[in-house]
């Protein structure tokens, strides 16, 4: 029964992620897109007369149910069926991260960076608070994220989604190369 705790290879996870796009369309013309859920929550809780949040968010409630599912799925995949071994990272990445004191231990996130204690440090504040803010601000500005542009938009051969995907990958690559090392060294 050990296989059930094993991580899934890319050639299993990738096609299943791609198949979610037609599945949602078949169920009810729903378009995969997760950053929209952040907009719906803002519209529901604090619309503040802002035009971006003035719409009937209840019509989009399927999207909020979907992210409730994501949360449960994360619990099943990351906790109930958690891989007991450290992630099989490439040796280069392991060496790079260990030079900042980040060890490869079981779990999907390094607790050296993501914990309640580090949240109170400048480093943790940058990683979680500033990082989260940029994710929310940027995806709404771009009207889509990795799922809406990267998976759905590219599957539907939408060229603006290719521009978006190149831009967020580019942003991530440049940030990881030039800025993140200075933050990890804090």
């Amino acid at each position, binding site marked *: 029964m050990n296989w059930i705790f094993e991580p899934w290879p*890319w050639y299993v996870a990738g096609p299943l992620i791609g198949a979610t*796009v037609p599945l949602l369309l078949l169920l009810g013309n729903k378009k995969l897109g997760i950053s929209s859920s952040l907009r719906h929550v803002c519209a529901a809780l604090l619309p503040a007369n802002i035009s971006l949040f003035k719409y009937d968010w209840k019509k989009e409630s399927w999207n909020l149910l*979907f992210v409730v599912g994501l949360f449960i*799925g994360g619990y099943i995949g*990351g906790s109930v069926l958690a891989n007991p071994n450290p992630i099989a990272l490439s040796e280069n990445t392991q060496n790079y991260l260990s030079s900042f004191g980040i060890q490869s231990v079981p779990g999907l996130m390094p607790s050296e*960076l993501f914990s309640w204690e580090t949240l109170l440090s400048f480093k943790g504040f940058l990683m979680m608070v500033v990082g989260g803010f*940029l994710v929310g601000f940027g*995806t709404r500005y771009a009207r889509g994220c990795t799922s809406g542009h990267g998976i759905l938009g590219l599957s539907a051969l939408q060229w603006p989604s290719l521009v*978006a995907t190149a831009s967020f990958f580019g942003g991530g690559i440049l940030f990881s190369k030039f800025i993140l090392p200075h933050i990890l060294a804090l």
Partner: protein
Amino acid sequence: MKSIQYVLVGIFFGIVLTKGEAISWYRMQEMFRFESFHMFGIFITAIPTGAILLFLMRKAKLKTLEGEPIEMPVKPYHHGVVIGSILFGFGWALTGACPGPIYAQIGSGFLVTIVTLLSALMGTWCYGYFQKYLPD
């Protein structure tokens, strides 16, 4: 009761993202540093799978379960696609999460990533507030 199906698809998607390690900060660093094929493998199999199935659905003129014609997604261009996505890329490198994985990271037991979610909500709200002053 029809809405429960979206919770189920969400659970499915969450398990796939998590077991595929696509919600892992470690894996995102590895991807951004081009040190493993894993994440690229996920993208280059996910997109053609979606594209081929969409193409076949259109060919077969399939309808939704409720019998409606299927609407193909349209993503118009605006400059925010570039500016917003670059900013998002910075946040992705920091948190190791795009919006979907944020929810799954919390579920997987890293409760502190609730802070990432609250900050993302704040970011979304602030975009709404400043939208009229920003180039579209």
